[in-house]
């Protein structure tokens, strides 16, 4: 299968703290990959580096979008990364709270629209059609994610689980080929987590996107992922299939502490 994201030697230093230490990672087409590790391991920092929020200290990052040339995304601004087809959600929910659910998704469509100031003021045919299309497209995305009942609600009034799913819907609206989910199940109950599990598989199958997710819920990780990368103190300590990771003594040790003898 074709590799769509290659990260090589990614290093991120915050002053003296080495949050990421020479991480290599790759994702193939339609693959679900999990990035796990104890708290403070550097997982979110990894997302921030590839999405352009932090410029990495060292390392290379390449994407090969389906049907397009391989290119480096190092040094791109966050919005350019998104335009190139990487979309993400946030660990601490970052919805536009005072906008409606529909509007949140419409913001996601922003980078796939083109009308400018003149269009906004003159409200010519092309603009009106584009706006109408965006409303419909956004609604269809909400239907897929199972949020259509909330379409006209303000984001802040949504239950927690629905807010997490709205973040996914918003990210999908940018038409990504790779979806980066930062702890999508955090704060969800068992039923919601199970629904999320199904949702992620469904997104992969229907949209044909690859998914890289950070998650602490091991049950979800083991059932979803094709491959797992484990980081601890900024270093990659293991990678492989779920069954291999489950048995890996280094991973067990990282999770349960130094004193534990496997």
């Amino acid at each position: 299968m074709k590799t769509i994201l290659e990260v090589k030697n990614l290093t991120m230093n915050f002053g003296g703290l080495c949050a990421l230490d020479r991480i290599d990672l790759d994702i193939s087409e339609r693959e679900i990959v999990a990035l796990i590790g104890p708290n403070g391991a550097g997982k979110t920092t990894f997302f921030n580096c590839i999405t352009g929020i932090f410029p990495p200290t060292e390392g290379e990052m390449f994407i090969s979008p389906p049907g397009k040339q391989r290119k480096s995304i190092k040094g791109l601004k966050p919005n350019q990364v998104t335009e190139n087809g990487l979309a993400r959600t946030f660990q601490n929910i970052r919805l536009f709270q005072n906008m409606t659910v529909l509007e949140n998704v419409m913001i996601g469509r922003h980078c796939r629209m083109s009308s400018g100031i003149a269009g906004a003021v003159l409200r010519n045919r092309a603009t009106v059609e584009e706006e109408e299309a965006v409303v419909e497209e956004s609604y269809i995305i909400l239907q897929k994610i199972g949020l259509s009942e909330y379409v006209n609600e303000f984001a802040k009034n949504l239950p927690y689980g629905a807010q997490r799913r709205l973040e996914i819907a918003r990210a999908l609206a940018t038409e990504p080929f790779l979806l980066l989910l930062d702890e999508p199940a955090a704060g969800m109950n068992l039923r919601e987590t199970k629904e999320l599990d199904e949702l992620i598989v469904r997104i992969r199958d229907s949209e044909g996107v690859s998914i890289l997710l950070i998650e602490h819920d091991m049950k979800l990780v083991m059932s979803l992922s094709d491959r797992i990368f484990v980081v601890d103190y900024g270093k990659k300590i293991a990678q492989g299939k779920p069954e291999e990771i489950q048995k890996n003594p280094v991973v067990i040790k990282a999770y349960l502490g130094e004193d534990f003898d496997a």
Partner: protein
Amino acid sequence: MITLPEIKKSFFVSLWFMFLTFPIMVVRVNPIEKAVEWRWKNLLLVGVGSFLLSFVWRYLFKRKEAGKKKEEAGYDSGAKSFFHIILAEPKIYKPFLIGIAFFALAFPFIFSIYQTNIMTTALIYVMLGLGLNIVVGLAGLLDLGYVAFYAVGAYSYALLNYHFGLSFWLALPIGAALGAFFGILLGFPVLRLRGDYLAIVTLGFGEIIRIILENWNEFSFGPSGIANIPRPGFLGIEFSLQGATTFMYFLMIVLTLFTVFVVNRLQNSRIGRAWIALREDEIACQAMGIDKTKTKLTAFALGATWAGMVGVVFAAKTTFINPASFTVWESIIILCIVVLGGMGSVIGVVFGALILILLPEYLRAFSEYRMLIFGAVLIIMMVFRPGGVISSVRRTYRFEGLTGKRDKTGI
């Protein structure tokens, strides 16, 4: 019920007020007779007045707190104010609007030149407020140097007319373009700053422009300013003073309507949405593919465009400009208009401008207490209606079925 502790509290409040106002309300030095007047009656008035007002204040405060609790408990509709109910009901606001339209049309024919002039000034501030509203209210960028772009517009007409005899109608778009140009020029370096830092830098920029105008005599004629700026002509008609004033007034009405139209359309567009999202959460916004710098710059430049345009009108209206018209105070007033009226709300800003500009004019009767009342109104407003007179209830995009028919409700 009024309880004893409340009376005690009010008593101390009134004591405190008497102490505070003692130097201005009681003592008056009469320099001619070289005597000090003691106006003890005023002290009594302040004491009793503040004692009673403190009860009113407490009552309003309690009501506000109760309202807030209700809202937190989930009674959403409780937040709807009197204005919003009126504005949501076409049956009520349509006749109201028609009434206002007729009043506006008849205004210069009913009232004196003086009144018409004041109204024109108020409309100038309505436009400035709406322009700044794009920057502060919609995009959330605190700009304290807005008046600089206003100055750019005014001086571009004055100077172009002085040197090249350019007419008002040609200067209007040029002033707007120059405003935009300066907006972009300033915006590029400063828009990476946030909140208070941006405020400080724009404040500095506003002062720099004013100081340049004040000191660069060869260019701007310094503090003595530029006089004899022609009023706008219209199809070659020579206006009398009365006619010119009336024409200026109607010109401002048209420009204001144009501004309301444009701002409304911008608000409900792809760019307007991006501004609001940017105000909500910058990082999420960028992660959604919105170019932060470009979007902010658009807002900043558009705001500046409006200031430039209004500047040209201002120069034409007063026929004389000098740097004293473009002090920080002006920026603050315009900002007050936006904040007091209701950030992001077009009707709110219109109201805010009318209140803030007309109030001091009509308070002239109270001469020395004018600014005191003005300040008190501002403080009371901000305590009891922090969202502004008519806080912004944004039109939200609503989905009404997959037919492509989209309806927008709200105000």
